[in-house]
């Protein structure tokens, strides 16, 4: 089967389009999150997404419509993590751990009350981008535009608080507002990425392109570009390889990202003077 034949399938076209959009979002946001030591926020919010999806399924709300249940719940959870770190004097990882555990607990209880785990809920756990619908692609495209617009508008503020929050405040940046913007954009992306790689593997899409780019980038903008490029390439390659080998797409995307990370580390060693051996 050649590439053109694979591309002729509607479900492959939808998967590629939605996958690339989501990968760009996650990779770009991942750079800010990794540098702010909030890498695991994706994991925590993914667990909340699991809980919110269980709510949707309990009310027989499926597919694209379930996003409308997940979005507000996960947005609130993202702000909850921030407030916990500010008000309860918790470190970021502890706050993420609390919200994550509550999200998964809510999901388990609702799934249990709703008659146990079913195929729909498991598809959210491990992702199934090849089953993405036209409506979900449109929602992904709409949210992609919103998130990229906000990222563009707040780019320098985000860079400033990522570099140093104290210095950012003295430059007049409203650090609380910008931190809220960052976690809310992350929440939107996590809900979208749920269908792509699944709840269990979302954090890899946020972290791996970012840490690979950090190995090689020679400026902040280059870092953002490299991360986005890796995210796109990993999704496209993951979809093709999984289609050809009949292996799960989400796991394949993660493994290809890991391969890119290994290559980036090796390349850095080669390019760093004194480390050429």
């Amino acid at each position, binding site marked *: 089967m050649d590439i053109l034949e694979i591309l002729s399938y509607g479900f492959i076209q939808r998967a590629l389009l939605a996958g690339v959009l989501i990968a760009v979002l996650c990779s770009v946001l991942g750079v800010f999150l990794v*540098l702010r030591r909030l890498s695991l926020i994706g994991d925590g919010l993914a667990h909340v997404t699991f809980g919110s999806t269980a709510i949707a399924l309990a009310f027989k709300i499926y597919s694209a419509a379930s996003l409308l249940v997940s979005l507000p719940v996960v947005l609130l959870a993202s702000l909850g993590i921030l407030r916990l770190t500010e008000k309860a004097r918790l470190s970021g990882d502890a706050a993420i751990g609390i919200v994550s555990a509550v999200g998964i607990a809510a999901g388990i209880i609702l799934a249990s009350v709703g008659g146990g785990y079913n195929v729909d809920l498991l598809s959210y756990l491990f992702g199934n981008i090849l089953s993405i619908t036209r409506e979900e692609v449109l929602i992904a495209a709409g949210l992609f535009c919103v998130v990229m617009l906000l990222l*563009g*508008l*707040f780019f*320098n*503020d985000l*860079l*400033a608080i*990522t*570099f*140093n929050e*104290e*210095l*950012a*405040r*003295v*430059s*007049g*940046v409203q650090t609380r507002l910008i931190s809220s913007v960052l976690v809310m954009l992350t929440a939107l992306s996590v809900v979208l990425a749920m269908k792509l790689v699944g709840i269990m593997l979302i954090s890899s899409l946020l972290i791996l392109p970012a840490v690979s*780019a*950090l190995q090689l*980038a*020679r*400026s*902040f*903008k*280059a*870092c953002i570009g490299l991360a986005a490029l890796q995210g796109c390439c990993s999704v496209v390659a993951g979809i093709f390889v999984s289609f050809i080998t009949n292996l799960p797409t989400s796991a394949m995307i993660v493994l290809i990202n890991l391969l890119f990370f290994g290559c980036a580390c090796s390349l850095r060693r080669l390019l760093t003077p004194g480390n050429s051996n």
Partner: protein
Amino acid sequence: MSGEVVRTEQLGCCYREGCVLEDISFTVNAGDYVGIVGPNGSGKSTLVQALLGLVAISSGSARLFGSRCDGFNQWGRVGYLPQSLHLLNPIFPATVAETVGLGLLSLKRFPRRITRQDREKVDATLDTLGIYDIRAKLIGELSGGQQQRVLLARAMVNDPELLILDEPTAALDPETRERFYRMIAEINRSRGVTVLLVTHDTGVIGQHATRMLYLDKRMLFFGSFDDFCHSPEMSALFGEHSQHLMCHRH
């Protein structure tokens, strides 16, 4: 340039663990160069952080350019260089030029964009501080002295009227430290920039600063270095021999 730049009245910063600062009253005028000195834990950094609204004031008041510090928003008039050791994430991928450009955000309104004119301003500031040739390097790859100059450039790029430096020389070797102090003194003299500099180097800063502020939770001295060297209170505090060494290092 004239007038009051900083005024504190009975300023206090107290937390659950106790008071870090009590009853601090002083005024800094435009063009002054004030060295803030004192032992470890004396509240030097807390004082400048209170002036910048980074820590809460529990009693008294503090004003910058006539505005209360807790609601201050004229950030374009201020340049700040924090203690550097804990500041820089070594894997942070920003170039020197990108880092310095962030200092211009204080002059901008939403959406804060860095324009071509801004980049020219950044280049001019880097040139003035003698670090133009490293503008494309990553900040994490620089030596301590170079990083300090980059952060000073970041604080200077918006042409501030007040420069607040918190232990800027802590990570530097003595030679680089002396060069740094001379650079700050030159900026103070040639541009009329008011400087508040926190340091442990009482003797060295005394050669450059127009006024000394000695803190140990309370303000124990505020005046010229000459007066500091002849103050019976300081002599009682340090002992005559130590005071002599401090005041006659050069």
